[in-house]
């Protein structure tokens, strides 16, 4: 078998088993690839659970009883959120590409990077172990809301400890990336010559550093409540469950930006390459990432409009929520302006990137609807919310993940994939996605509550439509991933720069050599230099 992946670990040559050579490697590229494999597996498993839920919804009770339904959507949520979208693009593509994009040989702390990866594996193992331990998989929803999470007999403690460990992994990755960007940019690469993906990784790193500890302490509280009955969230002892919601969302709203900022970074790399134009308003796009990260801290309360809050704070949180739309809008307009007048090529990465822009816009606009007080009261905890967050997280972060997968696949593996299969998969994904989740908006407006395993007959047509959508979507996912897996073995060798990209990763071979560059590049101009003299 030919090994299409980089082989050297950059360690002194010591005879090692295949597994050890990977697991003990501190090479950011290997770590990135291992994360990538793990994430793809989680995505597939999580999607299978999603399809299972949809199946159950067309014949409530036949497949899953109420308890099992609760456990399924919880596991689906926990897998997708904590093991897929939050680590997501930064740990996989960020790890592989950040040093390449800024012209460095590795991240600032290679061994810490390896530790993050091990912590990710440990966290995943601990969460999965909760499936087999006494009490069975947890049924709290991925939000672990108190007081239920304190009372339920399902295996909450293990899952929560697992998420705590994942949080540690996330913090260390953020810390590593922020330090890397501060200290290891290639000579000549000032901040304003840095490509946009590193910019978003930088903003994300800060969000990881500033938000994750709050989740960590909240999770510690849950475990302490369960084991020692401390009483912080128990009204009988003077505690307050609403405080749990505050602490939880102080992390989990910014976490949305941990998911979506890097996705925006990926799109900002792909759009100029396939439009053959410099990004319109580079500075605005770069700074808006930082703005989104900053304002994103102040809006957690919009998850709690119905939980009991003063009218003043509700109005304030609603207003601030609208404010986040501004920098996000800046990005969208700048991408569109970049496309305008460009000579656009629609290869697979570009198709997924454009899909991101389209679906994320719908997710964002519906976000404004539920960020306003009156509609929120109407659609709170209905399928409208489920539709909204899938448009943002799957249509946004998920599609960007697939875009990145296609864009950098030749660089990472040194192979080319079949473009026609990629497009076919994309069509299926696009159709299935909208059939599934747009229907959820409709169901939600009609009043179908989320997290219910049964419903009155009048919602049946909607559920049936969504379920058919889930089949098409799953098929699309299978085609897309199958195509790439096949290319791993059979793909034609990739050149160093298959797309005509201008950022530094395309200047080195595919896959890159152990230390990335023969010689550390010296940067003399900004990224995306298509403008002056280059063709339009």
């Amino acid at each position, binding site marked *: 078998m030919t090994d299409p992946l980089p082989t050297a670990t950059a360690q002194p040559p010591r005879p090692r088993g295949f597994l050890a050579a990977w697991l003990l490697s501190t*090479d950011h590229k290997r770590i990135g690839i291992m994360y990538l494999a793990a994430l793809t597996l989680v995505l597939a498993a999580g999607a299978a659970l999603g399809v299972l839920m949809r199946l159950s919804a067309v014949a409530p009770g036949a497949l899953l009883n109420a308890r099992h339904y609760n456990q399924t959507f919880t596991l689906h949520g926990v897998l997708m959120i904590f093991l897929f979208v939050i680590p997501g693009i930064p740990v996989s593509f960020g790890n592989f590409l950040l040093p390449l994009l800024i012209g460095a040989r590795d991240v600032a702390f290679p061994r810490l990077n390896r530790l993050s990866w091990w912590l990710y594996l440990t966290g995943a193992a601990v969460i999965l172990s909760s499936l087999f331990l006494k009490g069975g998989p947890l049924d709290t929803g991925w939000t672990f809301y108190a007081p239920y999470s304190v009372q339920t007999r399902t295996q909450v403690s293990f899952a929560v400890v697992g998420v705590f460990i994942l949080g540690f992994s996330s913090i260390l990755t953020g810390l590593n990336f922020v330090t890397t960007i501060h200290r290891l940019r290639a000579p000549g690469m000032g901040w304003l010559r840095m490509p946009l993906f590193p910019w978003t990784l930088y903003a994300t790193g800060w969000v990881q550093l500033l938000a994750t500890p709050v989740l960590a302490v909240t999770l510690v509280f849950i475990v*302490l409540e369960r084991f020692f009955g401390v009483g*912080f969230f128990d009204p009988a002892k003077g505690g307050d469950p609403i405080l749990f919601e505050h602490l939880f969302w102080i992390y989990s709203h910014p976490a949305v930006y941990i998911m979506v900022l890097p996705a925006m970074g990926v799109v900002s790399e792909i759009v100029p390459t396939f439009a053959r134009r410099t990004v319109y308003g580079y500075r605005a796009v770069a700074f808006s990432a930082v703005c989104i990260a900053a304002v994103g801290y102040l809006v957690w309360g919009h998850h709690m409009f119905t939980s009991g809050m003063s009218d003043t704070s509700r109005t304030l949180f609603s207003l601030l929520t609208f404010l986040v739309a501004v920098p996000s809008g800046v990005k969208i307009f700048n991408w569109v302006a970049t496309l305008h007048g460009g000579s656009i090529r629609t290869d697979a990465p570009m198709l997924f990137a454009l899909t991101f822009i389209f679906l994320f816009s719908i997710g964002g606009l519906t976000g404004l609807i539920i960020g306003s007080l009156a509609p929120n009261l109407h659609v709170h905890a209905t399928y409208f919310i489920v539709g909204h967050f899938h448009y943002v997280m799957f249509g946004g972060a998920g599609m960007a993940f697939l875009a990145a997968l296609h864009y950098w696949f030749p660089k990472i593996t040194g192979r080319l994939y079949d473009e026609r299969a990629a497009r076919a998969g994309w069509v299926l994904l696009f159709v299935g996605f909208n059939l599934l989740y747009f229907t959820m908006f409709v169901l939600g407006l009609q009043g179908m509550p989320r997290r219910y395993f049964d419903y009155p007959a009048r919602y049946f047509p909607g559920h049936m439509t969504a379920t058919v959508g889930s089949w098409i979507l799953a098929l699309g996912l299978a085609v897309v991933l199958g195509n790439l897996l096949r290319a791993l073995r059979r793909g034609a060798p990739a050149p160093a720069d298959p797309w005509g990209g201008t950022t530094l990763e395309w200047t080195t071979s595919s896959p890159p050599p152990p*230390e990335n560059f023969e010689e550390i590049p010296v940067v003399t101009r900004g990224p995306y230099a298509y403008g002056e003299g280059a063709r339009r």
Partner: protein
Amino acid sequence: MTAVAGAGAQAHGEGGAKLGMWLFLLTELLFFSGAFLLYAVFRARYAAGFHAAAADESTAIGTANTLVLLTSSLCMALAIAALRQGRVRASLLGQGATMLLGLVFLAVKATEWAGKIGRGLYPDSPVLLRREHGEVLFFGLYYVLTGIHAVHVAIGIGVIAAAFLLTARGRLGPGRYALLENAGLFWHFVDVVWIYLFPLFYLVT
């Protein structure tokens, strides 16, 4: 350690390590602030109960432990300065003293906890649940916050122990003391957190 991937990256290691440590301490600070937030909310809600419960704490023991921890921070600072100047033995002495004082702090804390638990004052205990909400939450916060702090002290001792071994074997020295400096930063941080915990629990009566 031996050279690892990205020799170029490692060259930036010493300065980068310090930046990394500061960022890490920032996350630690936020971790504690979650708990401080709860303290603030509950304190505002049950001022009288907090007042009453704090009377249970011995200010004398708290003060003594504060002094122990402050002295340990001083020892740590001296140990770093000594290593920087190449006085390895003095540095080892300072590090040893820091660890010893850390252990004293933990011992004092343990007796304090044991005394309270002996009187039936612990979370969810029948004795405590008979008291009013403010007191229940005060003691809940007391155990959680001092507990988390104690875990940090223990981790700090572990890290200093590692630095001690590396120093003794000559792996840390005048040209290479980032690890000890970072251990010191962590230790001072633990100290600072205690400086906040002390008034919150011992001096609020």
